[in-house]
């Protein structure tokens, strides 16, 4: 009994020590927030979405392939290097890069709240998503899938027959 208690205390101490040790290097650099870098470099009043550079908004290796994203890369913008992105944006502003070749520069479009990829301008400057508590739930006209699923859950629950499950047999290794 005494040995068991000692073992338990030892393991508990080991857990705590491991937690502490593993926590120390956790001050690692987080993935850069590129939309904020773009907004800051160009003095935008809004934060553009990831889809400005990433096709379909999917981030990750090899996804910077929108027309604007390709231009940014062609001007030296590189992953995990905020300075290279700022420098590339400055170069694009200077040479008046127009990724869609429509005569209007990408940077000028961004400053006017327009999408240099030719997408929906309202999406570009929409309020960005935020996280944490404090949101409110809004009713949506025509949004029926959630309501329908709720009704199905309630309906099924209403008709559930209470029954006992067979006794569980304990397994051994």
């Amino acid at each position, binding site marked *: 009994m005494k040995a*068991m*208690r000692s*073992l*338990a*205390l030892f*393991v*508990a101490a080991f*857990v705590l020590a*491991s*937690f502490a040790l*593993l*926590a120390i*290097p*956790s*001050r*690692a*650099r987080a993935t850069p*927030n590129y939309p904020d870098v773009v907004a800051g470099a160009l003095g935008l009043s809004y934060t553009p*979405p990831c*889809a400005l550079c990433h*096709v*379909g*908004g*999917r981030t990750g*290796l*090899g996804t910077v392939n929108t027309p604007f994203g390709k231009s940014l890369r062609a001007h030296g913008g590189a992953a*995990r290097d905020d300075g290279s992105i700022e420098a590339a944006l400055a170069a694009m502003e200077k040479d008046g890069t127009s990724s869609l070749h429509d005569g209007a520069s990408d940077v000028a479009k961004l400053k006017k709240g327009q999408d240099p990829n030719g997408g*929906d301008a309202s*999406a570009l400057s*929409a*309020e960005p*998503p*935020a*996280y*944490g*508590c*404090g*949101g*409110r*739930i*809004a009713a949506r006209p025509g*949004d029926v*899938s*959630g*309501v*329908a*699923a*709720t009704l*199905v*859950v309630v309906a*099924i629950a209403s008709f*559930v027959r209470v*029954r*006992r*499950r*067979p006794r*569980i047999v304990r*397994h*051994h*290794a």
Partner: protein
Amino acid sequence: MRSSSPVRAFVALATFALALVVTLAFTRTASAYPWMIRHGYGACTTCHLDPSGAGVLTPYGRAQGDLLLRDHYTKNGKAGPEEASKTAGFLFGLLETPDWLLPGGSYRGMYLYSKPPSPAPAIARYVQMQADLKIGLQPGIFRAGASLGYAHGGALSASITSRDKDNLVSREHWIGVAIGDAVMIRTGRLALPFGVRTVEHNAFVRASTRTDLNDTQQYGLALAYSDTKSRGELMAIVGNFALHPDDYRERGYSALFEYFVDPHVGIGLSSLRTQALRDVTTRVAYARQAHGLFVRASPWEPLVLMAEGDWLLLSPDGAATASGYAGLLQADFEVRQGMHVMVTGETLRPAQAGADPSFGAWLSLTWFFAPHFDVRTDFIHSRVAAGGAHANVESVLLQLHAFL
């Protein structure tokens, strides 16, 4: 309290308090081991409070974890002990709790090394994946579950606080009612019932369907059913309230059903459809769907084969519906009790016009080396579609997981 000795009571309480503080002070994923079907445990409710698995363990789950999961260092293939050790309990058995109170906690830390193609720099960093305290309640017919943890980075979709990093996170919090032994109806923030509930939250099947255990839980109302022949859960989704404004929240449903052909073979169906007024990354309205099949089978006790295939559909506002797919095939071989070698293959073609498929191959080693502890190493080779070409990425993960 197990002991009448004030000294022991003080030590137990002090240890719990310290564990609480340390866990909260330092933190993304919960635990679920779908390969437990090798022991005939296809249904999740035997060991977990959550009817679809993961999260806090029942007393029976703790006992089975001790008996069947960890290495007992027996020789010549001898079986381990017949009864679970007292260290299987909460805080290694130092604090005895009534059966209706299910406390718990998990810490999962990982060292990541990833080498993308040159000239991109290699990534080498420590990732604090999870540092959560959990509690479950099951007095009478009442059921409740909640987690609270700290995340240094990531897990924003589960955050309670609103900082860019260093947030308090609650991946789940729900209340419910058990109707008999087989049915539970609950509401709150829940992991979406879909596919094989694995710990690999970044697996293509979990990431592409947004049904992982890390931070893609949503609020809603769910009805779960579980018996010895089948299990299923249907959830009505009303959105993730940790994400705002409301335009970004998804409404819809997610559901799964698994039928046990045999106690060691389960075949399942999953289906999900949600829509939102704005996508988090593109900020345009969309509807997405995922429908799939999964199989778990243990033809021989040391071996479990798991497969999942999902058909993905994305309908962005103003654009045609695009389809894609995600697939996972995993073989878990338990070399000796507590020691697992896993080989995984996966593929993903995103629901996006013109997208090319990516592939991944994992070799993983997991060792449940002590009560409440396991370590894991993953060697991952990914062939990622990148702008009409493919890039090779090599990664090594070293993980330590401890639970209270």
